[in-house]
């Protein structure tokens, strides 16, 4: 080994069609030590790693997104394909490992052939050999290698068999070749002609006939000669059955049935949403208790000092009231991951393509919209799979209306106010109404925006829906679990600092400048004195100054400046609304050791400082819910929307349209409810 190899690790890129076992191979090579990186200037994600030390080979591995051809069909694919040739961060690959599912040999070889013809240094890794074996066939690796003109190795993703052999081939390729002699592949497949595509397929079909062998007559005849005799009767008869997986067809008889397909679809969706609430509930209680007692503990330890207040109110309560809904995010990611792994998500997209296309969306909008119930940010990234630009932009446009998990703590609090604590089902029903309402709302908005397509979205494109429905399989629990935890971790890393920072900022605004007001506490009990000091401190704070600026906007919806400050804070991130209310109404020092119930207690006692009437009533609470359903509030969403749509136009339109709709609907709701006799 020479020195230059030690200095600069060689780059190996994994390339393959979706469902070809590419990521499984990546996991085998990386062990657990991989990291996810974004393509600079975009959000196509790549995973990179060093090959595990136990394999004794120094090289970087890059896992690229799945593609079926080197001819790009969507913005997503264009980025993937361009960076295959030259990744701005990692450079050009010394070697490409192309994964090929042998049970899909003819379709998957298209990409391998294109890679070889473009001039990449390619090793083909054959996966899913066990599936082909079950059908009674196998692939002759040597013949395939000869026909393709590159190294071919069979691997088993589950057992790891063949990986050692694959790596010894890799070692031969990279260690005995000078790293300066990287081939520079050419882009020869942009807008490839029909004739050229058909020629490649013709070659592939010839190769396929040569390399697929029946196990029964192994070594004596290959399938090609057997086919020769049958060709007159049936020219397409090739190895085994050309039918898809029999079990999959049987399951699809029900799940894709024209009569029952939609029923199953709605049952599955209903199951997802109920489990988000019911399964998560005990875990959320646990998180709540934990932070509640932690806050009480620090508060009693430090006493009534400013830093004691900062730690128990600003930091612990602030973050606690947000971390409380982590269980829900985790469960949503888990269920989405499981559904995707079984192969159902693609079918869901197919089932509702038609109605979505009526309002200018696409069946492929389904997964991004569904992810939007967890968080708008990954949802907007998921919209990259939609190849039609207009449909992609419209999907991104309405994603903020999907009821993301950041709204959950807000709804949970507001519904908790409206419903008695012994009637949990009533709150559940309320949530269902909110969710259905927000889905209908977003579809109406999509239909309206689609009508004004020319002035709002400004894109026209060929609409298309072409999607492989993968064979059903049992989800790999380990992979799904790991991905879900990874997603939640990413979420905490991204949202955590913002939430913590804002919590401290709001604490500061509500605590200063008049942090120890001089008031006469003679004749008052200790508890009453504390409450009086608190309210005096708050009404002379910076937050009060800020709130009084927004008072004119808050009066029409029956709110005062304190809610106004919380709503301003919620524009940074919706969930901050709850922690901000908690801080403004100073709820910690009560005997209660549970954050939620002490906020509710404070809300029930709060008076509107203008009118002296109760601040939170049935009408104002429902008004707030309506506001949160429609308003565009999350700063990170705005940033991602700008990035994904390539400009400020769409995010600014989202802010204007959604927030003004929210405000107007809130005024209407509050006043209608008051007219109807609700307080």
């Amino acid at each position, binding site marked *: 080994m020479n020195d230059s190899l030690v200095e600069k690790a060689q780059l190996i890129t994994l390339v393959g069609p979706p469902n070809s076992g590419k990521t499984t191979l990546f996991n085998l090579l990386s062990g657990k030590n991989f990291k996810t990186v974004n393509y600079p200037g975009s959000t196509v994600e790549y995973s990179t790693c060093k090959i595990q030390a136990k394999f004794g080979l120094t090289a970087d591995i890059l896992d690229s997104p799945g593609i079926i051809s080197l001819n790009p069909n969507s913005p997503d694919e264009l980025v993937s394909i361009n960076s295959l040739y030259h990744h701005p961060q990692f450079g050009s690959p010394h070697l490409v490992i192309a994964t090929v599912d042998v049970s899909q040999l003819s379709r998957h070889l298209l990409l391998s052939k294109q890679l070889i013809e473009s001039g990449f240094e390619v090793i083909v890794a054959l996966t899913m050999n066990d599936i082909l074996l079950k059908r009674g066939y196998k692939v002759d690796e040597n013949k395939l290698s000869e026909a393709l003109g590159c190294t071919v190795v069979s691997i088993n993703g589950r057992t790891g068999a063949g990986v050692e052999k694959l790596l010894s081939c890799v070692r031969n390729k990279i260690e005995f070749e000078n790293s300066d002699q990287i081939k520079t592949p050419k882009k020869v497949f942009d807008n490839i002609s029909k004739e050229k*595509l058909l020629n490649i397929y013709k070659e592939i*079909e010839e190769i396929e006939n040569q390399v697929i062998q029946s196990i029964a007559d192994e070594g004596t005849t290959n399938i090609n000669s057997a086919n020769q005799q049958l060709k007159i009767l049936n020219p397409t008869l090739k190895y085994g059955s*050309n039918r898809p997986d029999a079990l999959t067809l049987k399951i699809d008889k029900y799940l894709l049935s*024209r009569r029952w397909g*939609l029923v199953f679809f709605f049952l599955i969706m209903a199951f997802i949403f109920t489990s988000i609430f019911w399964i998560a509930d005990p875990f959320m209680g646990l998180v709540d208790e934990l932070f509640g007692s932690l806050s009480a503990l620090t508060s009693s330890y430090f006493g009534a000092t400013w830093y004691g207040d900062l730690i128990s109110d600003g930091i612990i309560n602030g973050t606690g009231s947000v971390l409380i809904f982590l269980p829900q995010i985790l469960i949503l990611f888990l269920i989405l991951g499981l559904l995707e792994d079984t192969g159902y998500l*693609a079918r869901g997209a197919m089932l509702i393509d038609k109605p979505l296309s009526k309002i200018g969306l696409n069946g492929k909008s389904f997964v991004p919209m569904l992810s939007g119930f967890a968080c708008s940010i990954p949802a907007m990234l998921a919209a990259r799979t939609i190849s039609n630009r207009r449909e992609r932009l419209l999907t991104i446009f309405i994603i903020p209306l999907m009821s993301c998990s950041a709204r959950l703590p807000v709804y949970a609090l507001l519904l908790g106010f409206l419903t008695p604590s012994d009637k949990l089902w009533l709150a559940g029903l309320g949530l269902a109404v909110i969710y259905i309402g927000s889905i209908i709302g977003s579809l109406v908005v999509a239909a309206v925006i689609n009508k004004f397509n020319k002035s709002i979205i400004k894109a026209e494109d060929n609409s298309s*829906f072409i999607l*492989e429905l993968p064979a059903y399989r049992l989800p790999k629990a380990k992979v799904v679990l790991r991905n879900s935890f990874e997603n939640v971790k990413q979420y905490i890393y991204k949202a955590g600092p913002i939430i913590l920072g804002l919590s401290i900022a709001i604490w500061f605004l509500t605590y200063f400048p008049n942090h120890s007001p001089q008031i006469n506490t003679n004749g008052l009990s200790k508890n009453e004195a504390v409450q009086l000091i608190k309210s005096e401190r708050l009404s002379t704070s910076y937050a009060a100054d800020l709130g009084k600026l927004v008072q004119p906007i808050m009066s029409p919806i029956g709110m005062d400046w304190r809610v106004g400050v919380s709503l301003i804070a919620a524009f940074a991130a919706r969930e901050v609304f709850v922690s901000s209310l908690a801080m403004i109404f100073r709820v910690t020092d009560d005997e209660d050791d549970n954050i939620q119930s002490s906020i509710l207690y404070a809300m029930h006692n709060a008076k509107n400082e203008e009118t002296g009437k109760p601040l939170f009533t049935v009408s104002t609470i429902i008004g707030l819910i309506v506001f949160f359903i429609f308003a565009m509030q999350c700063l990170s969403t705005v940033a991602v929307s700008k990035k994904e749509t390539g400009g400020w136009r769409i995010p600014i339109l989202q802010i204007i349209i959604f927030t003004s709709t929210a405000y107007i609907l809130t005024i209407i709701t509050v006043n209608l409810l008051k007219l109807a006799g609700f307080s």
Partner: protein
Amino acid sequence: MKTASELNFGEKAIISDIDNSHPSFRRILEIGFTPGQEIELINSSAFNDPLAFSLRGTLIAIRRHEADCIILS
């Protein structure tokens, strides 16, 4: 001239050509709908569109108007 969108459920046919004036023809070819291949209409959504075809041992869902560019023999 019969196209793939006119197949009945469970009916099999051989592709004779792909209409290359259709905007999606390239992706249709790339996913494996090539002349000479046998396809079978397996499922459709409740709205009769998209359609799911069996092709090269797998299932592919495409819209009715895309199936229109697959010409059968």
